[in-house]
């Protein structure tokens, strides 16, 4: 959802980060972020303010300032939003919460992390969702403090990317610092092919940019760590974790039962059955894409989708992976004495606090199961607040296709039995009231327009014309 970085700087909220903004307002990020809309200059301080206020905003995002979520976005607009999202997925060491980060560590496929980044970031800053930590592949209890700290120091911000993905093999990417890549598109192709090529090139470029952005952050992180080692005055490196912090985090970690990786405790806990789940796995659990109910669509009816009532399309809420309770949600109980980073104390000065945390932690894990609506609970749906819009859009797309198919069907038959079908379908859609795709309305008008005396040939012409219009309307990209 479009919340542009800007105005909403929250001075109080960034008190920690303030002191850092000198070291973190990176001149280098500008070259690339001057992408399609060169005017965007994201400075870390405003970014953070943005993160903190984003949660509130995106809760009301559906009613956001006249922005109709059903309005078709231009290709450029969609590309811009996608690029923004990818930028939000870059892990930055200065954006740290309790020793973890605001963006995931290991996910390289964008489909897996298509959540609303501003929602996730603000949940982490509010300590309602565990931050993303760099996991360990294994943990050995015999490691000494020094060994463990050394291992943790060696962790990157993000798992290495696969530099050449098969999917982008041979796709030209041109000059990444230039926002315009029109010239890479083969103009001799049909418009549809050009569109397809454009999206391929865009994705390949975006992937490379993502690697670049992350590398830049990695380098900065590394350089800062090296500098910090040499420097006497640690002030500038205050967002780096102290030795105590690294040790405390990783000494008592746990294995996520889904990815089998070792993470600092506390992990998130399922609201229903109190099982652990790391944030990286949690954000990947989402509703299935809109589909027809399973009992209906088993292979016995390979029916053409366009012949089915679009209102039957569903998308069930996620189930708990452990106990299958619907409306999956988690809670997170941060360690009170380890509140460092954004809206907390300075990570570099963190000192181990003895004992006091333990009874509290035990108390926390002893809670019973909570309702999905409980205030502490973060549900899967809340990370992708646009799921309803997506579902409605898919219904509309299908309704369009179905109207299209009906028109063609009728033009073949020239009699009206299929009318009833289509008009009942239409009344369904109307009652559901997402804004109507135009073609359906037009079809409705037209059905009433045929005079009873119209000849078969007239009707046929009308229908063919209609079918052509609809198919044109449909071939416009809906993705």
């Amino acid at each position: 959802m479009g919340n542009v970085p800007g105005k909403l700087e929250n001075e109080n909220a960034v008190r920690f980060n303030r002191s850092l903004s000198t070291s973190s307002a990176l001149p280098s990020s500008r070259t690339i972020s001057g992408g399609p809309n060169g005017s965007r200059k994201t400075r870390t301080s405003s970014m953070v303010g943005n993160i903190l206020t984003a949660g509130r905003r995106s809760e009301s995002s559906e009613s956001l300032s006249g922005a109709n979520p059903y309005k078709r976005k231009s290709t450029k607009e969609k590309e811009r939003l996608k690029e923004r999202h990818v930028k939000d997925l870059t892990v930055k060491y200065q954006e740290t919460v309790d020793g973890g980060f605001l963006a995931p560590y290991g996910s390289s496929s964008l489909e897996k992390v298509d959540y609303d980044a501003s929602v996730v970031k603000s949940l982490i800053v509010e300590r309602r969702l565990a931050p993303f930590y760099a996991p360990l592949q294994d943990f050995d209890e015999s490691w000494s403090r020094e060994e463990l700290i050394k291992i943790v120091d060696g962790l990157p911000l993000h798992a290495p990317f696969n530099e050449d993905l098969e999917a982008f093999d041979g796709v030209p990417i041109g000059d990444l610092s230039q926002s315009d890549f029109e010239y890479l598109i083969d103009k001799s192709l049909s418009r549809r092919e050009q569109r397809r090529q454009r999206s391929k090139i865009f994705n390949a470029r975006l992937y490379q940019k993502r690697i670049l952005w992350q590398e830049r952050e990695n380098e900065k992180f590394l350089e800062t760590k090296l500098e910090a080692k040499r420097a006497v005055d640690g002030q500038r490196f205050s967002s780096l974790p102290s030795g105590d912090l690294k040790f405390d985090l990783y000494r008592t970690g746990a294995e996520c039962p889904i990815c089998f990786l070792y993470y600092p405790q506390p992990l998130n806990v399922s609201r229903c059955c109190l099982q652990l789940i790391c944030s990286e796995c949690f954000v990947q659990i989402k509703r299935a894409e809109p589909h027809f109910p399973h009992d209906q669509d088993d292979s016995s009816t390979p029916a053409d989708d366009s012949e089915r009532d679009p209102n039957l399309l569903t998308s069930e809420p996620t189930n708990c992976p452990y106990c299958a309770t619907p409306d999956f949600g988690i809670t997170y109980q941060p360690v009170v004495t380890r509140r460092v980073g954004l809206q907390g104390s300075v990570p570099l000065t963190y000192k181990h606090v003895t004992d006091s945390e333990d009874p509290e932690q035990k108390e926390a894990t002893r809670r019973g199961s909570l309702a999905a609506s409980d205030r502490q609970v973060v549900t899967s749906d809340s990370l992708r607040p646009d799921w309803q819009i997506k579902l409605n859009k898919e219904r509309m797309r299908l309704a369009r296709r179905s109207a299209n198919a009906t028109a063609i069907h009728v033009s073949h038959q020239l009699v009206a039995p299929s009318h009833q079908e289509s008009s009942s379908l239409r009344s369904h859609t109307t009652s559901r009231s997402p804004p109507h795709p135009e073609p359906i309305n037009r079809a409705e008008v037209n059905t009433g327009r045929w005079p009873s005396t119209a000849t078969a040939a007239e009707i046929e012409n009308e229908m063919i014309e209609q079918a052509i219009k609809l198919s044109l309307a449909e071939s416009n990209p809906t993705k």
Partner: protein
Amino acid sequence: MASLPKRIIKETERLVSDPVPGITAIPHEENLRYFQVTVEGPEQSPYENGVFNLELFLPDDYPMEAPKVRFLTKIYHPNIDRLGRICLDVLKNNWSPALQIRTVLLSVQALLASPNPNDPLANDVAEEWLQNEDNAIAKAREWTNMYASKQ
């Protein structure tokens, strides 16, 4: 292909170090996401004494997406079709990332012990099963002997 996720490595190790009785799953040398599987027919089922070959593939999105499992050995079963495809809820909409290769294969084995002709994939087999169960079971035995006998 990207490096193998820890989860797949650990699952594979555990399958070897702590195998499930009656089930083997061995990863292919060239593609560690592809497993050659054998499942023994459960006792007191028409598939008793049979050893069935299956293939199992872990898609890129595993464990967020279910593994793909298919019978390679011919089998007479209402929920398994001629191509070896299996109608099993945990392989489809009831998949959960907390399940594993191990649990999926156990579910497949359990499906052999309790065929469900009311939710068929192989319609002809299911019909036979419902109309003349004795005949169907005899046929399942026959096929087991013919195609799945231990050498």
